[in-house]
């Protein structure tokens, strides 16, 4: 029987670089040119690595809280993977670097980080060369890719690459012994007392 492990993946990057669009392409295979801001702040998608292993991504969007440097620590809490997005047609690459620093400060050291240059469909307007991102990712030990949420190019692949890097043998952070005595809190009255790991 196939085993599915859940991992928390957070999205980071400046406003309007296409964070939500990448996820919507990945999860629903949809794209819209005029999506104003985040509507789906929590999505899940399961990818199959092989016959016996599936990975369920619980994807957290910033819900716009990055705009005025107001992302709460709870956002980074227990994240297993991060996708840092920049727009290759803008000079948002420098900002992507500061998100890497932020992750190194706030997240668990074992976090898998993928740096993504988005909007490869706008190649003619490119301002950030691929090599620049590649070199920085190599120096910092990050995964790297370029993609287009609009055409779908590279999207599936980048999430697949993250999935392959996630540690499958030891369970993810959310199931560590420190949390093992957590409780499930649900609606009043139902499944009253189940003293077991909480996955809320």
């Amino acid at each position, binding site marked *: 029987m196939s085993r599915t492990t859940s991992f928390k993946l957070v999205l980071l990057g400046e406003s309007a670089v296409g964070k939500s669009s990448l996820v919507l392409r990945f999860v629903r295979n949809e794209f819209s040119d005029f999506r104003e801001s985040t509507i789906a*702040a929590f999505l899940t998608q399961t990818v199959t690595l092989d016959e016996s292993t599936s990975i369920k991504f619980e994807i957290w969007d910033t819900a*716009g809280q990055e705009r*005025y440097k*107001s992302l*709460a*620590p709870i956002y980074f809490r227990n994240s297993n993977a991060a996708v840092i997005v920049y727009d290759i047609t803008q000079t948002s690459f420098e900002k992507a670097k500061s998100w890497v620093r932020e992750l190194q400060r706030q997240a668990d050291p074992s976090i898998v980080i993928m740096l993504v240059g988005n909007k490869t469909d706008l190649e003619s307007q490119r301002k950030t060369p691929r090599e620049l991102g590649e070199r920085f990712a190599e120096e910092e030990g990050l995964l790297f890719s370029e993609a287009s949420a609009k055409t779908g190019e590279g999207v599936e692949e980048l999430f697949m690459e993250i999935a392959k890097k996630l540690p499958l043998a030891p369970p993810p952070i959310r199931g560590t012994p420190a949390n093992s005595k*957590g*409780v499930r*809190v649900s609606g009043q009255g139902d499944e009253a007392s189940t003293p077991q790991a909480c996955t*809320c």
Partner: protein
Amino acid sequence: MDEEYDVIVLGTGLTECILSGLLSVDGQKVLHMDRNDYYGGASASLNLTQLYQQFRNSPPPESLQLGRDRDYAVDLIPKFILSSGELTRMLVHTDVIRYLEFKVIAGSYVYRDGRISKVPSTEMEAVRSPLMGLFEKRRARNFFLYLQNWKEADPATHQGLDVNKVSMKEVYTKFGLEAGTQDFIGHAMALWLDDDYITKPARQTIDRIILYTASMARYGKSPYIYPLYGLGELPQAFARLSAIYGGTYMLDKQIESVNVDPDTGYFTGVTSGGETVKAKRVIGDPSYFGAGKDEPEGGKMRVIETGKVIRAICILKHPIPGTDDSDSAQIIIPQNQVGRKNDIYIAAVSSAHNVAAPNVWIAIVSTIVETSVPEREILPGLQLLGNVVDKFISITPLYAPTSPGTNDNIFITKSYDATSHFETVVEDVFDVWQRVKGEKLVLKKREVEVEA
């Protein structure tokens, strides 16, 4: 900032964040600001550096060997969540619960005659409890059976007592309960802070005991749950809800002024960093409306002091003596036991809740201030802790708004009180909602986000 908002919320304490979340879900355009560069305001949890900065204006001393800064999330207010209470209901109904993980507080204790004992919550525990003698146990059992069977609609279960009319004193008398038993029922189960309840109609006390026993029945060890990484997670989680529904967040924003129309007195906007943002209404905690200042804000007294609470945050390197080495506990010292008017509370959590380094416990001793030397008032609590590695004492005035806000669109929340749980915080949320919207807050189940 040319945009105009429906509501500006000032301060990211739990009360304000719940309101912000509910208003955003309701479709209102919300701007939420805080003068601090962190979430939580007066209900934040601080790391070691922030804690020492706030209380000592210096870094944590190396000599204490307190471990890694980032392992700490020290609550500024000591409260737990009643597992069957209103905050739990709020968390479930808004689905904010998915952002959080909880642990059960390991035990609830009550102080009597110089020692602490577990608060009995089941018949089994009551029978073994050293808090009562043999005959008293039988009487207490009758009282609890009466509560268990009591049904509003069935007068046969009322045993001739109209709880909406008779006082709690009369109920105690009917079951023949001793003063000491009354102490732990009224203070450790109904969680009253003083004895005023005894002469009031019994209904409210009975409701509170039923809430306590229902909460207790849920997870067994204590009636309380607690979020991993500290209480500061709660406002952050509700802020996320607000942001998902379009709320805009700005931290680290000094608020220069809350502006009103000079003719009508109605709120017009807020000035921050030299820029003015317009909105129809403002909601905020008392610190944004002149609390603690000699000169009232804009010549108008908007908040009034209702009392003072003393809180001593204590860092320990051992569990609290007499709690079976528990990772967490609540201890109540009923006022009668130490000759006071108000109870003393101890709330302890530890590394098991991801709020301190390994083998470190954080215990907060608190009470309502009655004298001019409050530090002496908490001594009975401090004495139960054993060796304290470091201690941070605050004496905090509690504020309440002077007006409901309906005549100026300025809606002010209350300070966090001395109770051990969040029930009064949720009451305040309901109250402010009623004032802002002119209708009762009805919790509807939020639409579930699509799972692909």
